[in-house]
């Protein structure tokens, strides 16, 4: 085996008394694709920041190609060929592709004046490294997430890079973009560049990485070759819990549907969509990013108005032209992007939980009944096991999984009949994902009708009784989940 490129040995790090890393040892060799996995708060980001010189470890040391350091600065890290691609890609959305590509090296060379010719050369050199085609004069803010990522990658390659650390690089990418990214990662590997890939997505870990390290609560719980890892072990290492996979089943008892749509459509988004949801049923809608699934989700909740067809709630035709109307018909919606659409991140957990039922909690003149309010909050925090020391903390202090629970609690407090969930477990860690799935299945068992819109196929297959596949705005398949598997669904999607 080759000498290791980087070693971090017996690293300890704590913040104001909380131990973020306890005796963690990590090693990566040249040209190795290594996956660093762990739930939120497991110490992944702390480890990355120590490797890249942002934090100094309390104890332990590091070795770059045999040279030993106790502490390094970010500049030392870059000089040793380490580049970090953060989740936000560290780009300037307001500037051109050229400037985004060239600034780092210009600053590293301590340039004072701008030379557009030199910057263009640098930029061309950068994109040539991964054969990335892009208009150098385009404004980066107008590009897609995948293109922004390519900018970050090609920029990182301008330095004599030996290790690229990618922090959850696939979060906002479509399937096709992910496979394109993986192709590029493999090409970098051929050139001897090591990749440290931070992820908590199981399938990606298996697909791309040779070796893995899993952290839990600041400790290394497992590491080794990915070949020896399977889904069950992975989940266990990540969470420290064993999970039973419950596959959702539903039996038609001949009850009238709660909710049905007939031939609804919106121009240039989707058309001729019909389906119905019975009490206790979970219907899954899946499709690629441009299949019209998001527009359909928004239309069902009145955020967009349908132009043709009709929507029936409990057999009666209703017009859903605004979220307020949807809520009046006891329809709830869990949005795709909970950060911007589902939660008031800076407000307290408590206020977020009761916001949708605020009308019911108020007395005369719209003054909120405090005792009623606090009992509601207590009930839901307990019911959904939201992990927080204090409900008056801001929502942004919670992890992704717990934030999603708050959004759920918010809707459940309204006694809904129908709940539409758009990507219910995007960016949620494995443990919370299992919990959320259990909550959803329990809700259905209590008689609610659920619609899950998701491109996470295992999620759809496991939790839905019926699966609709959207493609180009039309339903191309409608099948019971017992007769479907990921492969057949995928073949309809593409």
């Amino acid at each position, binding site marked *: 085996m080759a000498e290791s490129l980087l070693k971090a040995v017996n690293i300890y790090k704590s913040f104001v008394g909380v131990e973020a890393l306890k005796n963690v040892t990590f090693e990566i060799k040249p040209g190795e694709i290594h996956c660093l996995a762990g739930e939120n708060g497991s110490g992944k980001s702390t480890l990355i920041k120590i490797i890249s010189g942002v934090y100094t470890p309390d104890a332990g040391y590091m070795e770059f190609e045999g040279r030993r350091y106790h502490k390094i600065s970010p500049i030392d890290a870059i000089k040793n060929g380490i580049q970090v691609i953060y989740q936000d890609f560290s780009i300037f959305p307001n500037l051109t592709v050229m*400037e985004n590509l060239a600034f780092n090296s210009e*600053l590293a060379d301590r340039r004072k004046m701008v030379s557009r010719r030199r910057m263009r050369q640098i930029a061309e050199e950068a994109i040539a490294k991964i054969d990335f085609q892009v208009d150098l004069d385009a404004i980066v803010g107008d590009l897609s997430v995948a293109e922004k990522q390519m900018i970050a990658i090609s920029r990182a390659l301008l330095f004599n890079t030996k290790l690229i650390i990618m922090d959850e690089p696939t979060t906002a990418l479509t399937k096709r973009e992910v496979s394109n990214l993986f192709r590029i990662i493999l090409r970098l590997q051929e050139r001897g560049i090591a990749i440290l890939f931070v992820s908590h997505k199981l399938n990606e870990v298996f697909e791309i990485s040779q070796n893995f390290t899993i952290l839990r609560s600041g400790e290394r719980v497992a590491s080794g070759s990915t070949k020896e890892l399977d889904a069950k072990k992975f989940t266990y290492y990540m969470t420290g819990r064993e999970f039973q996979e419950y596959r959702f089943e539903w039996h038609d008892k001949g009850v009238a549907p709660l909710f049905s749509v007939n031939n609804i459509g919106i121009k240039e988004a989707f058309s001729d969509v019909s389906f119905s949801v019975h009490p206790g049923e979970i219907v899954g809608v899946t499709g690629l990013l441009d299949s019209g699934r998001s527009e359909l989700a928004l239309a069902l909740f009145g955020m967009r108005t349908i132009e043709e067809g009709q929507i029936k709630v409990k057999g009666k035709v209703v017009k859903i032209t605004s979220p307020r109307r949807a809520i009046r018909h006891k329809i709830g919606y869990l949005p795709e992007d909970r950060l911007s659409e589902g939660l008031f991140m800076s407000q307290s957990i408590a206020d977020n939980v009761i916001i949708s039922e605020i009308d019911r909690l108020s007395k005369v003149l719209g003054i909120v009944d405090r005792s009623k309010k606090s009992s509601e909050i207590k009930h839901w925090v307990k019911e959904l096991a939201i992990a927080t020391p204090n409900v008056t903390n801001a929502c942004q202090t919670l992890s992704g999984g717990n934030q999603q629970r708050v959004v759920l609690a918010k809707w459940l407090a309204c006694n809904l009949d129908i709940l539409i969930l758009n990507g219910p477990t995007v960016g949620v860690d494995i443990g919370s994902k299992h919990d959320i799935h259990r909550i959803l299945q329990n809700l259905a068992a209590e008689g609610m009708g659920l619609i899950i819109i998701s491109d996470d196929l295992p999620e759809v297959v496991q939790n839905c009784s019926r699966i609709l596949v959207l493609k180009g705005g039309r339903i191309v398949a409608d099948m019971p989940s017992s007769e479907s598997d990921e492969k057949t669904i995928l073949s309809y999607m593409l």
Partner: protein
Amino acid sequence: MRGSFRKLTRRNEPYIFLVLLALAILIEIRSGQFFSPNNLVDIASALIVPGLLAIGAFMVIVSGGIDVSFPALASLTFYATTKSLLDINYQGGVWLAFVVSILTGALLGAFNGLFIGYFKLPTLIVTLGSSSVFKGLMQGALNSRQLTTIPVGMREWGKRALFVARNPVSGLTSRMPVAFLVFLFVLIFVYFLLRFTMFGRGIYAIGGSETSALRAGFRVVRTKVLLYVMVGIIASLAGLIRVCMMQQAHPTNMLGMEMNIIAGVVLGGTAITGGKGTLLGCMLGTLLIVIVENSLILIGVPTSYKSVFTGALIIIGTGVSAYQSRGGRR
């Protein structure tokens, strides 16, 4: 060709320019006075002080901040300069006035820069506070009152004209002050700074994403402190020029100008969220406000309605650019 046309329509400057042109033509038709030489010189001379202040406000907004202290800063520097020169009975040229006000302006700007750069406090809060401090220093420590005479060097410089324009019909004349050269110099200087130096690109980069700027290796703190020092200097120049042109120092005369100046900058397409905007747009927006303030009287709009028009212009203008940027994202 089509691509560059589309780029053009997505920018703000062409719209502002068209509005300006339409307004000019409207005034010309109604009064026949707009394109007369003396009116054009009057507008150019009225643009000097707001124009300088707008350049400063523009740079701050591009960096992602907002500065409301520049009128107070300008007032304090021009008052301190004029008062001290009067007190020593200075009889020399205007250069000393420039040196004194540039130094005070830089010092006061550094005060803003210190809190914003080093202590990373929100710009609006800091400049609201410093605005109060500057006003208080002027009115308390310097016991300000109107100075009806100003040092002779400043008086003469304020009266000096580059050329005199004459209206062939009415015979009215207007002087183009030498101060216009100062304005042009600052404008060209800042244009080059923003476009061709890493310091200038750093201001845009910080406005786009401060975290990214830090990670890329920009010296964010130093850039910010220097930026506010420069804005202090530019504002102090505007204050001094104002005093020289008015031939007297009125301590509260400039206070309250910040709203129209910032409005002009935003009207010119500068994103209030930072990172986006051009000096050209900023100047067009400011010019639009200046023309509305100065020339509506030519088409018979009573001066008391001036603020109604300015307000409407601001709402419509910023509304259009907000609508555009929303359209761009869809």
